[in-house]
C-alpha cells in the first residue's frame, strides 16, 4: 500500500487533502499501467484523470481500505476499456511486421545482449503491441495485468471478481494465442 488506511478513510469522509495525498501516491503507478494498457501516450494523462475522477465519486462505496488497491486497478481497467471502446483503433495484427523484429529480439535476449537504448525499447514496445493484437481487447488487458503489471491470480480475482480457475483458463487460452502468433512470427522471420 502506498498510503495509510487512515488516509483512505479520511478521503472517504470527503477530506480533499487526503484525496490529494492518495492521487499523488498512486498517479505514477496508474499512469504506467494506463500507458501499457492503451498504448497511446498522448491520451494517458486524460485516462488517468478519469480514473481519479471515478475514484473521487465512488470512494464512499469502498467497503474497507484493505481492498483499495485491487479496487483502484478495477477502476483503471474499466477506464481503459471505456477509452479503447471509444477509440476503436485497435492495431491490426500484421504478421509481416512482427517477424523480423521478434526474431531479432529473441536472438538478442537469448544471447543476453539486451540493449537499453531507445531504438531497442521502441522495437520491444512495437513487438508486444503487435503480438497482443492477436487476442481480444479483454484478453489483452488481462494478459497485460498478469504478465507485465505482475498482478497475482489472487489480485486478479479481486479485480475481475471471478474465481481463480476461470481466470486461469482465460489466461491460458490468451497466452496460447499470443504464443502461436509469436511462433509464427519467428518462423516467418527465419524463412
Amino acid at each position: 500500500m502506498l498510503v495509510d488506511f487512515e488516509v483512505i478513510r479520511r478521503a472517504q469522509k470527503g477530506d480533499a487533502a487526503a484525496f490529494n495525498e492518495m492521487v499523488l501516491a498512486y498517479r505514477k503507478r496508474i499512469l504506467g499501467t494506463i500507458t501499457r494498457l492503451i498504448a497511446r501516450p498522448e491520451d494517458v494523462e486524460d485516462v488517468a484523470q478519469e480514473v481519479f475522477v471515478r475514484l473521487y465519486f465512488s470512494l464512499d462505496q469502498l467497503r474497507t481500505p484493505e481492498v483499495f488497491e485491487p479496487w483502484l486497478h478495477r477502476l483503471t481497467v474499466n477506464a481503459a476499456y471505456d477509452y479503447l471502446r471509444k477509440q476503436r483503433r485497435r492495431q491490426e495484427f500484421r504478421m509481416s511486421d512482427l517477424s523480423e523484429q521478434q526474431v531479432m529480439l529473441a536472438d538478442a535476449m537469448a544471447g543476453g545482449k539486451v540493449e537499453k537504448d531507445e531504438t531497442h525499447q521502441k522495437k520491444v514496445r512495437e513487438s508486444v503491441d503487435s503480438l497482443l493484437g492477436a487476442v481480444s481487447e479483454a484478453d489483452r488487458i488481462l494478459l497485460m495485468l498478469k504478465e507485465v503489471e505482475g498482478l497475482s491470480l489472487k489480485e486478479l480475482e479481486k479485480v475481475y471478481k471471478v474465481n481463480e480457475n476461470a481466470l486461469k483458463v482465460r489466461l491460458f487460452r490468451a497466452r496460447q494465442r499470443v504464443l502461436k502468433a509469436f511462433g509464427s512470427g519467428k518462423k516467418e522471420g527465419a524463412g
Partner: protein
Amino acid sequence: MNAMHGSDDQELDALFRAYRDACGAPDPSVNFMPNLWARIESRQRFTFSFSRMANALTTAAMALSLALGIYMAIPSSNATDYNQTYVEALAESNAPDLLELVSPNFELPIQPDR
C-alpha cells in the same frame, strides 16, 4: 516440439519483462492536479444541477398527482341525478302528461240550442 514450445514460453516471458522496462511510467504534467480538480468540480456541478432538475420534476409530478386526486375526489353537481332508478326518473319526467290524461282539462264545446 515441447522443448520448442518451452523455449517460446521463456522468450515470451522475457519479452514481457523487456516490455515492462521499455514502457516506463511517464511523468505527470504540471497541470495534472489542477486539471483533475477542474474535472471533479465540473462533474460535481453537473451532478448538482441534474439532481436539482430531478427534484423539481419530482415535486411537479407530485403536485400534479395531488391536484388530480383532489379533483377526482370532489363530487360533481350532477351526481344527485343518478340517485333515482330509471323507472322513477321516467315517472318523474312524464308526470304532467299523466295528470292530463287522468283529469283532462278541456272544456266541452257548447251545443247551440236547436
